[in-house]
């Protein structure tokens, strides 16, 4: 029998406390999704209410939550796939090839990383208006092709994960560059790609500003917009419906995180391993 030390007890208590603190907001949100607006505005409760049916009806009457869910899913999945693949492609090029002006180009990537997205939103809106792409998902998905932070992270990982000998061997065997990337590069870089893909999915799923600026058709609204609409109606507050919408909106993120959390841990630890 392993001896239980006092330090272990303290550690477990501390971790338990951290668990409660981290989980408590989610618990509060789920509880509020089952209470009426009046109950929510009047105070907090640890006990679930019995108004979930009423909240579902209220939510369905006010907004089209399923359409918003599908819209968010389409945009987030599209952006994640494009971001993951093309960021890996760019990072691969930075690692494997010794091209002219490589350092300058990488410097440009670093500079772009530091530009806050809010600065480019006006230019993006004007550009999309000129090319008649407002009220369209393309400007929400396609720009993810160039995600500077993903390129940076995957490049750092690829420097240690991609042995040049393997690339050379593949070339000697007659494989083309693109085939080498898809067959060898992608699998080796997959922990970093998954890590950045999860981050990219969460960022795209929670993105409020860009859809607000670019979309005006209610049918194309995403979940963050719908939730904000519910929360900002001062004349007809629907706190119960709003919490229910929030609970629905975090489901995909929870699913993605639980399935791919192993890759996040691998990806975070990856930079510390030296060959």
């Amino acid at each position, binding site marked *: 029998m392993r001896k239980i030390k006092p330090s272990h007890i303290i550690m477990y208590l501390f971790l338990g406390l951290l668990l409660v603190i981290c989980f408590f907001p989610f618990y509060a949100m789920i509880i509020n999704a089952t209470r*009426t*607006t*009046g*109950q929510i*505005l*009047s*105070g*907090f409760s640890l006990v679930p209410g019995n108004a979930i049916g009423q909240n579902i009806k209220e939510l369905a009457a*006010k*907004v089209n939550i399923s359409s918003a869910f599908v819209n968010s899913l389409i945009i987030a999945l599209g952006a994640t796939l494009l971001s993951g693949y093309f960021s890996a492609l760019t990072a691969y090029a930075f690692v494997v090839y010794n091209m002219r002006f490589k350092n300058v180009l990488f410097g440009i990537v670093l500079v772009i990383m530091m530009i806050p997205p809010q600065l480019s939103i006006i230019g993006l*809106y004007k*550009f999309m*208006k*000129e*090319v*008649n792409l*407002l009220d369209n998902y393309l400007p929400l998905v396609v720009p993810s092709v160039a995600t500077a932070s993903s390129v940076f992270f995957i490049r750092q990982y690829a420097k240690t994960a991609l042995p040049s000998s393997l690339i050379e061997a593949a070339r000697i065997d007659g494989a083309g560059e693109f085939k080498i990337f898809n067959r060898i590069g992608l699998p080796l870089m997959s922990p970093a790609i998954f890590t950045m893909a999860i981050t990219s999915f969460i960022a795209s799923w929670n993105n409020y500003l860009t859809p*607000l*600026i670019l979309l*005006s*058709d*209610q049918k194309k609204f995403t979940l963050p*917009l719908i939730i*904000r*609409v519910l*929360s*900002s*109606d*001062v*004349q*007809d*507050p*629907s706190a119960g419906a709003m919490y229910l919408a929030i609970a629905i909106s975090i489901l995909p993120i929870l699913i993605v995180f639980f399935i791919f959390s192993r890759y996040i841990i691998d990806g975070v630890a990856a930079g510390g391993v030296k060959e």
Partner: protein
Amino acid sequence: MKTKKVIAGILGLSLMLTACGGGSSTTSTTSSTSTTAASKAADSAITIWVHANSFKTRAEDYAAATGNEVNVVLIPYDDFQTKLKQSITDPKTTPDLFIISRDFAREWVEASSAITNLSQEFPDDIADYKAGTYESLVTMGSNDGGIYGITAEYSPGMMFYNREVAEKLLGTQDEEEVAKAISSEEKILELNELLKAEYGGTIKLFGTFYNVASFYFNSRVEPWVKDGVMTVTDEIDHFMDWSKTVYENDMILAEGEDDAYFNGYAQGNFMLDPLPTWGFNSKVKPQVKDSGTEIWGATTPYIPYVRGGSFFFIPQASSNKQGAWETVKYMALDDDNLYDYCTSTLSLSSSKSVNQKLADNDYKEPLLGGQAIFKSYNAESVNVEAKFKDSTNTTKYDGFIAEFLRDIARDYATGKVTKEEAYKDFKLRLESAYPEITVEW
């Protein structure tokens, strides 16, 4: 490899040229859109932008009743102005109709190049509107002799009061007697002393400082900013002193509209709350309906004020003004629809005849202790109309001004700063937010 570089270069250049050269093609597209738009029939689909679900429901009722197609877009309140300004001048992106809070209405009335002059476009209907509504609403929606915005709602400010506490302190819960007992600040202070003696501080006089501030701010007749100058008037100075009195005498339950405030309605933890007519449906009813706390009533506040209400505007760039106007008429000018809306939400309409009918029907609201609430609203509307009939008291700066005034009043009231320091801080903050304004006192 060289070929790939050349192709990549050509693709990049053509992308840049598309963005730069898009203007001319867009112009021709706009022209053809305008031509096409001009020939659209009045009953083709219209797009309405709203920030409140109640308008969405009514627009959908219009669509169901008439068979006309309506696309209602619900946009968050805080971002509504930004989105409108970005889209309103382009026929491709503008809504055909938008409904916006009174707080922002004046800004759009004065942006007459972007908004349809309804007096010119629909003179007969506007003449009927003017004849049947309140002068203050006509004044609010007019600029240079033309009406640009109309409203479906009149929102005089009321004072909601706790009947049980009133009975205990004053021996009556009659709205007129209570109005007499709160008819001045001196009487309010006396009432507060009675309250403290009776309840030992467990029940406070006012629900929130936020609503007290809104009450004072919305009682102004003149706009805060005139010709680029914000003057700290005697009214504002008096509000600062009153805030200090309120805090020193421990008269408020909560700072803002938080859990304590809403719970206060359910539990009866405060006595007075200045809210306009629409306040019952959004703030009082959700609390008292479930808890069955039918202890509230509404009476005349000691200063007439008007707060909220929404105005309808048709952008100049709209390609379906007639369709938009038909929707406006259904939602804002049809007496039967207005009557139904008011009875379901316990608010007051912009039509005098509808309001008289509401009062004459002698409806008694059970959640307000059986009060003939429309009679009370109508009585207060006389005071409000007398005060505000020539007033256009809102500007685009009001949101920040109100926020900064509340902050400095709180700091002064709690003794953190002197009045002079508070005004200097206010000047710094407002002039930083709006460099085109000067603050004077």
